[in-house]
């Protein structure tokens, strides 16, 4: 093998380039802008027909970007997100507002499914 190839000045940049390519490949197949999650009440029951608001960050402010409604199982879904720093909040007439959840993404428009549901403090009747 030629000496110029077995050299840290070749190996390290090549490894670095491979990492960058791999990361960009991962980003390319996961940047659909899809955000999914669930909304539950204080004892973990799904909250149907709640409004979920998506705020995205621009420098120091968070501005409302989209709204969605939960289905019978309390699931919600946003499409077309193009930011990397978000906040989510659920609202419903009977339960008021949930805590506002900060969602940080590793890249813009990353597809994400929230592991923990948005939670109201009160209970559904």
């Amino acid at each position, binding site marked *: 093998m030629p000496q110029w190839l077995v050299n840290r000045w070749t190996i390290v940049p090549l490894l670095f380039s491979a990492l960058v390519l791999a990361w960009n490949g991962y980003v390319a197949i996961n940047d659909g802008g899809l955000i999914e999650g669930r909304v539950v009440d204080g004892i973990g029951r799904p909250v149907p027909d709640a409004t979920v608001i998506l705020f995205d960050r621009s420098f120091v402010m968070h501005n409302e970007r989209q709204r969605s409604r939960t289905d019978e199982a309390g699931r919600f879904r946003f499409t077309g997100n193009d930011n990397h720093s978000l906040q989510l909040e659920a609202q419903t007439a009977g339960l008021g507002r949930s805590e506002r959840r900060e969602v*940080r993404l590793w890249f813009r428009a990353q597809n994400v499914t929230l592991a923990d549901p948005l939670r109201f403090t009160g209970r559904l009747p």
Partner: protein
Amino acid sequence: MTTMRRRGTYLRHAALVGVSAIMLVPFYWVLKTAVTNENIYAYPPRLLPERPHLFNFVDVWYFIPFPRYLLNSVIVSAIVVACNIAFNAMAGYALTKNFPGKRAVLLLFLSCMLIPFQATIIPAYLITSKLGLLNSYVGLAFPLLSTIVCIFVFKAAFEAVPHSLVDAARIDGLSEWRIIVRVLMPLSKAAIATNVVLAFIWSWNAFLWPLIITREPTMQTLPLGLARFLSYLEDTTGALYAFAVMVLAPSIFVFLMAQREFIRGLTSGATKG
């Protein structure tokens, strides 16, 4: 005797490790703040980061045109490094020869090292402007295309090569250019590494010159981006420190890659008789 010597070595190493740790504290603090959002003025200060995360780096990447600044800095540094190796090697080789006025040239070089760049920035700006290089990559690299310190590094390295080798190459029919490229440069890897490291760090960290000659935000380099970022997001300490880490990382990386040759290149002239 051996035990005493070993104990002395241990003590010396322990002292060196202690001093190194103290010198690394500011770097650790920058890194710690970059992976948290802690207030750097908090009292009592925390030694270990609490709930560390890397999202400050993501913020830096997206809130300002970081990839553009990075590209500009990489292009300018590449121009500076390539030109430094070429021009300094030529100048260094010329200074190993005897020619009329050599002492005057050496004195001129040494005296020019005493003049701070800030004192010559207006003429440098006017020359760059006359050449039509304002707001261009070559213009950004212009004052660092050749540096006197690095010329002397090459001079010392070339003088360390036996004259008989250069004479033999000349008898074999090599031109002066090919003597530099084929004979002297391969024997001066330490000098090349020193040139690469110094030229890269100087161009990477340059602030005043890019500030003066750039006209558009798209031509700005990372240090200017850092200043711009500070004006945008003055309350986000974590992101600011993350930016500082991202600006510092490439130069530290280049230094670590070329460390061995760099130290050898700097000290080779010092031990020459």
